[in-house]
Every structure is written in C-alpha cells, then in structure tokens.
C-alpha cells in the first residue's frame, strides 16, 4: 500500500472553559484511514459533522481551543514516515505547500484585501523558495498560472476585483504553486454558481493529472464526490461511518446515513421532493448514547441505542459502521 | 533590535546630559544667582517692557529690579522710601503745587544721568497722550510742570490735592519716571516695546524666555550709581531670575531641588516644602509660618445695590451668623489674623487704628428693635482660635500678646439668635424646614461668585462663608467662574469673594486709598464697570464718608498726621456701622525661602523690609542677602 497520509485513531476535540466549566466538543472522535498516492479522496457529511476539523488535524493546524487527545497523523515525504504532530515548527512550516497544501473553504476572503495578488503570491513563494530574486519568483508564479490555463494578468489586480469563480481558481493556483504531494480542498465549490463550479472542478482534475498529486476533497455535496473522487468516506458526528470506492458507495450504500445523503441529491428529471434525513446532526457536545445516528435513523434497533457500532470490513475496500451490517 | 539600541542611546544621552549640564543658561553660576517665583505667572508679552503703555507683567523684574520709582511704600517697616527722590514731596500751603527733589548722581543703565528733564518729560507726556493709563489723573490735576533746576521739579496743580504724590508712590505700581532720552526718539510710546529696557534700578535685562516663563537680570556694573546702591549698598546676587510656574507641584519641586530661592506657595504647599526640605524656611520660623502683615484684607463682598443686601441689618445679620473660629479653621486652617475692621492688621495700622478703636468697638451697639440692643464685638476671638488650633495639634504659643499678634485683635460674636432677630425684624422668616425665606416668602438663596483657584484666599473665604450660612439655614452655592473678574466689576453678582476693601498704602496713617473708591461720585450702576474691584465693586456710598474723603484731600498726610489718623478712624466707624462688606482676615502670603544659596531673609524675627519677591521693594532686600557659596 502506497500511503501518502495515514490517520490513526484520531481524536481532536475543542476544549472550552465557560464560566469555570470545562466543555469538550468531540469534533473528531476516533478516526482511522489512509489516503493513497495519486488518488482523489473524498470526505462527505453534513455541516457540523467534524469534517473541517479533520482536515485541520490532517494539516496539523492546531490552534486552541482545538486539541489532539489521541491518535496520530503521518506524512510520507521522501518515502519516510513523519509524525505530523511532533514536527517542529520550522520543519512543519517547510512541508507546507511543498508536501501538503490547502485550498480554503470559499476563497472570498483568503487573499490579503489591501495588497495586490502578486504580493500574496510572492509572500507564499518567498517563505518556501530560498535564494531567488523577486522577478524569478514572479516568473515562476506566472508560468504556473499559464500552465493551469489562467491569465497571469490576475496577479496585478486586487482580490476584490475578481469574480467568485475566478478567485477560487486563483486560490487553487496559489495552493498548488509548489506542486505539493497532497492537496486538501475544503468545500472548494461552495457559494459558486454551476458554471463556475464546473470550471473549478475541471481545474482540480487538471491539477491532479498535471502534478500527479493526491487530493483530499471535503464537501457535503455528494454530486462533487461522484464527479471527481476515487474513494470516499462518510462522516457523521465525528466518526467515519462508511468508507469505500466512490462507485461502490454510490452503487451500494450500506449505512442509512449514506443513503440519505445520496437520496438528497437532485436527479435529472426527478420532480419529487428530495428526501433528506429528518432532524439535524446532534450537538457534538452532547452526543446521544450508542450510535450517534440512531435518533434520525428509520431502521433503528434496540442495540443501536446502547452501543457504538465499530467500523466493519465488508469487503476489500468497503467498510461500514452499522449494527445492521453485523454478521 | 535596532529600536532597542536607539532607545538605549537616547535615554543614555538624556542621563549624561543631566549630569553634564545644570539647569541655568550657559555662563550663569548658580551660587551667584537668585531665583524667584513670578506671582503673576508666565509673561504674556515677553518681548515688551513698556509698562507705561499697559499691563506688562511688571513683577517679572521690571518693577523689582529694573525701575526705580520716586517713592516706595514698605508696609513691614511702615516707611516710605525715597528712591529717585531725595526726600518726601513738598506741598505749598493750599496744596496746589508740589515740589519733587531728585537724588543726585543717579544714572540710567545706559550711562545717561537722571535729571529733572526726565520727570518733566514723563509728566508732560502723560498729560498730553490720552492713551497712556496714567493720563487720567495727570490730565485732571496737572496744570503745568516745570524744571526748577537739574534736580528739582515743580508740579502746579489745577486744584488742591494733598495726595498728588501718591501717583508716584510705588505700591505694586505707580507712574514711574521714563528715560526721556529713549522715549523722545520714539514715534508712538504706546506701541514702543522698550526692548532693551533702560532703568535706574540696580539690574539690567540679560536674557528672557520668548515664551515668557522666565526673565534673567544682571546686576549693573555701576550699581553704586542707582538709588538702591546708594541707600543700601551692593545687591548681592549677580544675577536674578524671575520664573513663572503653571502648577504648584512644579514650583514646590523646583524649590526642593534648590532651583528656586524665593517662592510664594499655598499654605499646603508651604507645609510640603517645610516638611521635605532642611534648608527652606518660612517668614516665621515656627507655626503658623505665613506672612501675616500683608497690607490686604480678605473677606466677603455684598452688592449693595441688590436686594436684600442693600439693607444694613441684613448685612449685619449675615456677619453675626458667622462663627469666626470655625470660619478660620475652614478658610485658612486657623493660621491667619482676623480683622473686625476694613483694614489689614499690618504693624503700622495696629498701632494707629486698631488700638485706638478697640474701646469704641467694645462699646459698639446694634439696635435690634423693641428696645433690644446687642454688643457684637468679641475680644476673646483670638484666644478661641488659638484653642481650636491647639486641638488640631498645632504648637500654639501661650503668650496672650503673641496670640493677638498671630490671630488678630478680635472679631464679631457668633450670635445666630441675634441674626435671627435682625432678619425677622426685616420681614424674613424661617420655613417649615428651618430654611430662611425672603420677606416675599420665596426661599433665600445665596450664590457666591468665586475664584476658580481652590487655593486662593477669595475662594477660601467663599467656601467658609457658604459653610457658615448653610449652617444658619440659608441655601448657599459657591460658583467658581473664570468670568469672576468681569462679573464683579460689572456688578453682576449679589455676593462674591472679592477683597472687602481696597488695599491701603500699608504705611503711614493715610487711608485715602481704601476709602476713595466709595465716594458717591464713583458709585456705578449694575452693568457698568466700576473703576476699582476691591471695595469699589460693593457699590456702596455714604454722605458722611464723602465728607471725610473731601476733608482728607486737603490734609497733608506727612505733616497733619494726627488729623489724618482721626479722619481714618471716623471713616472706619462708619464702615463698621454699615458693614457694606465683611472683612474677615488679613491676607497671608505663604512665603518660602531656601537658605541653601542665600540667607538673611527678612523673616518675622528681623523684618528689615517687606518679604515678597514680587513687590517693587525686592531691590532693597538684595543688598542684605548673604551668600552661602556652595
């Protein structure tokens, strides 16, 4: 197995002190998976299920109140295994953008609003590429944009002068500037219109082909997963409830939650109202006992209320955490 | 890192410079310099020394060091000191001609001799030029001024005036003699800046702050050709700096750092410097320290044109509602001498007026109506104040003579019940709440227009009076306002904290200066400005007083001493009967002298001259100072 990121029993919680009372939000609560080289891996789930936190943990961007309680995240730069959390500050900073990079959720405000984009690109480049003059770095940035099919003129503008779709594509260009091995994309198409969405997805696909990078896409939108991911995981209340090849999951969803997600997708010619899971995700502060999904599950059993179902292997590439699949 | 170094260097430089450079301008040795505080504060016209044209912050050294008047009053010794004049003025029989004889051998600081021509020029110019402040009296009285010889001038007056010389008698200002050779070359004596200034005093201008905080004077090489040098010898300090401070804290600290030799603080400030410094002394070496011979009386002023203060009995009722012992504790921490009459208790006046009046005061009776009478004078007041000060923990002397010296001769009794009778007799009444009502039934409210400076004597009086009258059941507010001066001069007040009477000369027996503002011809309606705030703003007059003032104008204060004195006593009796303003206590200057560089100050034990640094007489103190070469 040629893993590029492995996550082992990760528990990342937000710890808040409120009026002397300690409150723990279990955003990522025991997650295991591995992402392979040269694949597009998707993480799906409604908002508030912990998927953005999971991305942050993978990126090792741990700002209080987010804390890692257990588990590890490993990177594999140059083939050797590195513990992402125990990396020293400078070493981690160096791996950023060269090994692992990040496309933010909604590019609306990810660029310094008072500086031309050129400056922002240079800031990122200068922090990772030593010994080069400014013009050389600028040439590098221009070439990169051209390779991604974008006009280098955007560098002379201010972020607010770009359209939303364009800005998102520039953000992708910025994230991939140093040809990172892994690219984390957090809701890359949210808040974009359909045309822009398509362009952005195309660009992601191009990047993946061009640089043979691994991309981890996080989005609640199952349509995007269907379009670009090779493998995917479904998260619910801080846990992975199902993982498998994208085509398998869409063809044969095993977890009731996955089925809800898929059914909520609009289908061409379908005039019926979409059926979504009743209710909303539970508060991560007060998780229901047993399977977190049981209050919303139409097939709930007595057992579901008492015990948390483990992630069970169904076949070589398909895993699920549901008591219905037990035995 | 760069920033750190930058700051280290800046701070380092500041420290080093602090060690390397003293406070004074280059070339001025501290031990030969006297530094005195400027009472009137920062000079507003730093480059202009022409005090003939108007107010020029004259106590920046112009009057103390640069200029010499014909005569100067010293209230501490009770003398009149002839400066440019060689003796007292001489009047003819009917007071229509005055002769001035000049001291010979006096030179202006630019080397030109002083002669009768300067005096003639000065008076002549003032008669002719209507823009000069002293034009009024000169034009009114002078018919002709003529030079008899180089050192004799004769002034012919339009009508009899036995006090014409007082316009040349320096008591914090007078018409001083101008250097003719300087002014005759000037087109307009009003706009002329008189810089560099020329004078007959023992010092000349050396330098000054363009922003007006200080003026530096240098002793004349030919100090022996000035009246000061001739009279008292060589002034000891080679340099004198007169410096203004904007805050009392800065002044206190400057004195504690030995950067200020003579200062006038508040009594609290004086306590601080005495407590914190081993070398600072006050006028009196023991408690209560302050100068209590100042020729100024403080108190409360009524506007005698305003109801109900136009009523003598109301004014007396308010006087008797004051418990003077408490009043003094509030106003000045029991440190000042009280005065029942409209005169400050300076030595000369105690002898000439207080003592002769005392028997009369004891017998003085108020008519309360219904055949009731009341004798308000209380000679025990100084002893009561001494008792209260002792309770406060002050070291009060036991000697009765000393107690009367420190706390005054006596004051009016605290007699609220008598005050009540007087008020009820006049239709006042007490409401249900015990508060006083005016005769028309409305609540009696007194608003005392007051000084904004909490440390000043006026506001101290206002505060104490308000406190006493509140206790008596009147609603009193104190309104400190920067517009106080204007309001008082224009009469836009009912009660205020202005001096209750104009300051007398402080020497001799002539009290005309105090009584003149109350002549009926000067009575000014409300809304128009009176000529003189102290005393005059009370807008009161009395035909009996008019008569006395008229008689004084034709009585020579130098020759007819006994008559002058008698007239003064009669006038004071009228004031007491009428009580147009309430005199409370004599102004006290909290003078502090640092004995670090200079000693032999004119303290209470050796009052060879008046003690203030801002009075023109400073020049007569300087020859007596002893240097403590450090």
């Amino acid at each position, binding site marked *: 197995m040629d893993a590029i990121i492995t996550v082992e029993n990760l528990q990342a919680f*937000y710890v*808040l002190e*409120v*009026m002397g009372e300690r*409150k723990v*939000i279990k955003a990522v609560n025991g997650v295991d998976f591995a992402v392979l080289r040269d694949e597009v891996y998707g993480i799906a789930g409604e908002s508030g299920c912990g998927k953005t936190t999971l991305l942050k943990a993978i990126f090792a961007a741990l700002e209080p*109140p987010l804390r890692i309680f257990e588990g590890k995240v490993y990177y594999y730069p140059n083939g050797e295994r590195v513990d992402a959390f125990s990396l020293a500050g400078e070493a981690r900073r160096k791996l950023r953008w060269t090994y692992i990079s990040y496309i933010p959720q909604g590019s609306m405000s990810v660029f310094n609003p008072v500086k031309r984009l050129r400056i922002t690109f240079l800031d990122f480049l200068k922090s990772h590429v030593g010994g080069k003059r400014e013009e050389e770095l600028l040439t590098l940035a221009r070439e990169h944009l051209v390779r991604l099919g974008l006009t280098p003129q955007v560098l002379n503008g201010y972020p607010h002068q770009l359209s939303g779709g364009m800005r998102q594509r520039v953000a992708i260009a910025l994230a991939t500037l140093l040809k990172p091995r892994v690219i984390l994309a957090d809701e890359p198409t949210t808040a974009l219109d359909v045309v822009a969405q398509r362009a952005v997805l195309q660009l992601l696909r191009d990047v993946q082909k061009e640089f043979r990078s691994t991309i981890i896409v996080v989005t609640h939108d199952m349509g995007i997963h269907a379009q670009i991911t090779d493998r995917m995981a479904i998260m619910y209340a801080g846990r992975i409830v199902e993982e498998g090849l994208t085509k398998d999951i869409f063809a044969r969803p095993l977890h009731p939650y996955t089925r809800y997600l898929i059914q909520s997708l609009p289908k061409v010619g379908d005039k019926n109202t979409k059926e979504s899971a009743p209710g909303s995700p539970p*508060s*991560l*502060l007060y998780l229901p006992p047993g399977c977190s999904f049981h209050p919303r599950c139409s097939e709930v059993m007595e057992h579901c209320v008492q015990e948390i179902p483990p992630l069970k292997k169904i076949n070589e590439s398909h895993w699920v955490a549901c008591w219905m699949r037990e035995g | 890192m760069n920033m750190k170094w930058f700051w280290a260097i800046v701070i380092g430089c500041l420290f080093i410079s602090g060690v390397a450079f003293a406070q004074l301008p280059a070339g001025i040795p501290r031990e030969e310099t006297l530094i005195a505080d400027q009472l009137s504060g920062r000079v507003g016209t730093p480059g202009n020394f022409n005090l003939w044209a108007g107010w020029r912050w004259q106590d920046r050294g112009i009057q103390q060091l640069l200029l010499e008047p014909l005569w100067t009053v010293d209230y501490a010794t009770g003398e009149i000191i002839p400066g440019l004049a060689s003796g007292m003025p001489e009047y003819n029989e009917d007071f229509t001609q005055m002769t001035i004889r000049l001291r010979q051998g006096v030179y202006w600081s630019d080397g030109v001799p002083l002669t009768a021509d300067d005096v003639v020029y000065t008076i002549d110019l003032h008669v002719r030029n209507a823009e000069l402040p002293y034009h009024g009296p000169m034009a009114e009285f002078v018919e002709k001024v003529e030079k008899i010889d180089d050192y004799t001038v004769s002034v012919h007056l339009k009508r009899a005036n036995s006090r014409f010389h007082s316009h040349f008698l320096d008591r914090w200002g007078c018409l001083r003699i101008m250097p003719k050779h300087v002014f005759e070359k000037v087109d307009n004596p009003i706009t002329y800046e008189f810089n560099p200034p020329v004078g007959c005093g023992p010092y000349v201008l050396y330098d000054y702050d363009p922003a007006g905080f200080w003026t530096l004077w240098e002793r004349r090489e030919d100090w022996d050709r000035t009246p000061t040098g001739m009279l008292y010898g060589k002034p000891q300090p080679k340099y004198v700096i007169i410096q203004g401070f904007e805050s*009392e*804290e800065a002044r*206190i600290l400057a004195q504690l750092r030995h950067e200020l030799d003579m200062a006038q603080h*508040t009594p*609290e*400030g004086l*306590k*601080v410097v005495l*407590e*914190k410094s081993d070398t600072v002394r006050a006028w009196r070496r023991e408690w209560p320290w302050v100068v209590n011979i100042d020729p100024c009386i403080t108190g409360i002023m009524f506007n005698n044109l305003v109801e109900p203060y136009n009523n003598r009995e109301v004014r007396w009722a308010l006087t008797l509602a004051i418990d003077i012992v*408490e009043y003094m*504790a*509030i106003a000045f*921490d029991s440190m000042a001498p009280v005065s029942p009459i409209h005169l400050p208790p300076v030595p000369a006046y105690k002898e000439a007026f207080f003592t002769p009046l005392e028997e009369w005061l004891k017998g003085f009776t108020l008519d309360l109506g219904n055949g009731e009478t009341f004798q308000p004078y209380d000679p025990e007041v100084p002893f009561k104040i001494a008792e209260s000060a002792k309770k*406060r923990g002050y070291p009060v002397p036991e000697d009765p003579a000393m107690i009367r010296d420190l706390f005054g001769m006596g004051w009016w009794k605290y007699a609220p019940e008598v005050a009540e009778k007087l008020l009820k007799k006049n239709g006042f009444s007490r409401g249900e709440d015990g508060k006083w009502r005016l005769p028309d039934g409305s609540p009696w409210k007194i*608003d005392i*227009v007051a000084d*904004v*400076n*909490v*440390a000043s004597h006026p506001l101290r009086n206002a*505060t*104490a009076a*308000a*406190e006493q009258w*509140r*206790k008596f059941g009147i609603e009193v*507010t*104190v*309104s*400190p*306002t*920067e*517009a106080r001066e204007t309001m008082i001069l224009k009469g836009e007040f009912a009660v205020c904290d202005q001096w209750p009477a104009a300051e007398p000369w402080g020497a001799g027996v002539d009290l005309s200066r105090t009584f003149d503002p109350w002549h009926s011809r000067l009575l000014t309606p409300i809304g128009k400005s009176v000529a003189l705030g102290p005393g005059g703003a009370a807008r009161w007059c009395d035909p009996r007083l008019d008569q006395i003032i008229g008689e004084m104008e034709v009585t020579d204060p130098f020759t007819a001493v006994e008559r002058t004195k008698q007239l003064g006593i009669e006038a004071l009796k009228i004031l007491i009967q009428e009580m147009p303003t309430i005199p409370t206590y004599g102004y006290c200057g909290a003078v502090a002298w640092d004995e670090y560089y200079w000693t032999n100050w004119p303290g209470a034990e050796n009052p060879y001259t008046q003690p203030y640094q801002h009075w023109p007489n400073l020049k007569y103190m300087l020859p007596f100072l002893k240097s403590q070469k450090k």
Partner: protein
Amino acid sequence: MEALRELFRDYRFAVGFVFLVLLAALAFLSFFSPYDPVRWLQVPRDEPPSWKHILGTNAKGQDVFWEATFAIRNSLVVALIAGLVSRVVAVLVGFLAGYKGGVVDRVLMGVADGLLVIPLFLILVLVAMLLREAMTIVNTGLLLAFFGWAWDARTIRAQILSLREREFTQTSLLSGNSTLSLVSKEYVPFTIPLIFSTLISNIAWAIGMEIVLAILGLVRLEIPTLGTMLQWAITRQAMLLGHWWWIATPLALTVILLVALYWLSVSVSEYLDPRMRIQRIGAR
C-alpha cells in the same frame, strides 16, 4: 436576553459587571451616609485610615469613604446622563443618515463633522463658563451629552449602511413591511450590541472629561464627584503631604470604574465579531 447570557460566559464581562454593581452599591450607600457631603469639619481632619474612618479623613474634615460614595454616585449620574442622552441623539442621527442617505445624510454628517473638528474642549470651557452656578450634576451630564454624540453617530450610520446592503432589507421591503417595522425588527437588534459598546466608551469619555473640567475648576466644586474630589486633593497637596488616602480613593475608583467599562466593552466587541460568535454558539 440570549445575548446577555452569552456575554456572561466571558469572565471579563462578568467581572466588569460585578465591579460596576459594587460601584453602584457604593453609590447607593451614599443615601445612608451619616455626613452631609457638602459640609466641612464633620470629623477630625487629615487622619489616616482607621476603623472609625476606613478610608481616613481629608483636610476639609470629611470622611473620605462617605465622601467617595457621593462622588461615585454623582459621577455615575453625570456619565449616565451624558452616555444615554448622547446615545439617543447618536442613534437617531445615525439611523436617519444611514437609512435615508442623500441630502439628509450629507447634512447630518456635515453637522457631526463640524462638531468633531471644532476644538471641543474650547466649547466645553466656554459653555461651562456660561452656565456657572447652573453647572449642576444634571447640566454637566447634558453638556457632555451635547458634544459626545458625533463620533458614535458616524459609527452607527456605517453599520446601518452595511445592513441596508444586506438581503433582508430588500426582501422585507418587497414583502410590504413598513419602514418603521423594518427598522425596529431588523436593524435595531443588529445594532444594539454596537450601541452598547459605544455607550460604554462614551461613559468612559464623560468620566474623564468631568475630571478635566473639575481640575480646571469649571464645575461646582462643593458637589462631590470623582473630579472635584481629585481637584480638592490636588490643590490641597494631598499627594506631596503624604495624605495618600485622600487622592488614592477617587483615583482608584476612577480606575476601577474605567477598567470595568473597558472589560465590558472588550467583551461586547468580541461578541460582536461573528467568528467569535460561531465559536460560542458551537459551545451550546
């Protein structure tokens, strides 16, 4: 009041609030004072703190503790009048200018700018001189209110401008709601935290300004406020004479009051910041 409950989760808001309550309690105590705050020589003078006079006595013969209760009461009244009255003006002007725009906006903001560029202090001194004995607690507050609204009116206007751009204004107007109901239902809730935060800084400004006026002797000096207490202590040289209790009391009260207000204002500002809010909501 969901907002309040959330704010109380912040220790700074809670502590600031408790400080304020304590100061208010102190002010309330003044009603039970055994001494008349205006009168002199009520107790022995210049005594250091003791059981009998827990904060000592001053040179006027007043008990510093009881004097302080009146001072804090009067200062709070000045500050509250200044703060609340100027809030009414600032909110009206801000809403009107922001909502109406155009000429109304130009004129109102012109007036506000005019007030901002005139050396305010000059006007305050002049008016204080005019009012003289009328410089009572209430009038001092009103005077400060009159000059304290301009900056905040600008801030509120800016907020309204940004709200106007938002979607719900259009929707609300299209769906036939009246302007009044729009303003009261949609704008007011959004601007209340902002108004509160400007109120707090305005109160702090008013307290400071009252002290300046008092030190210059431009208010009625016999009425105890934090400013006049400081003024008497300064002019009677409490600091250099070592009567620290006299000057330290009003100073400490001023500092405590302003620290409490600062904490409230910081807390409210953070609360206003949407990102912080999400974090708090997450904790629900």
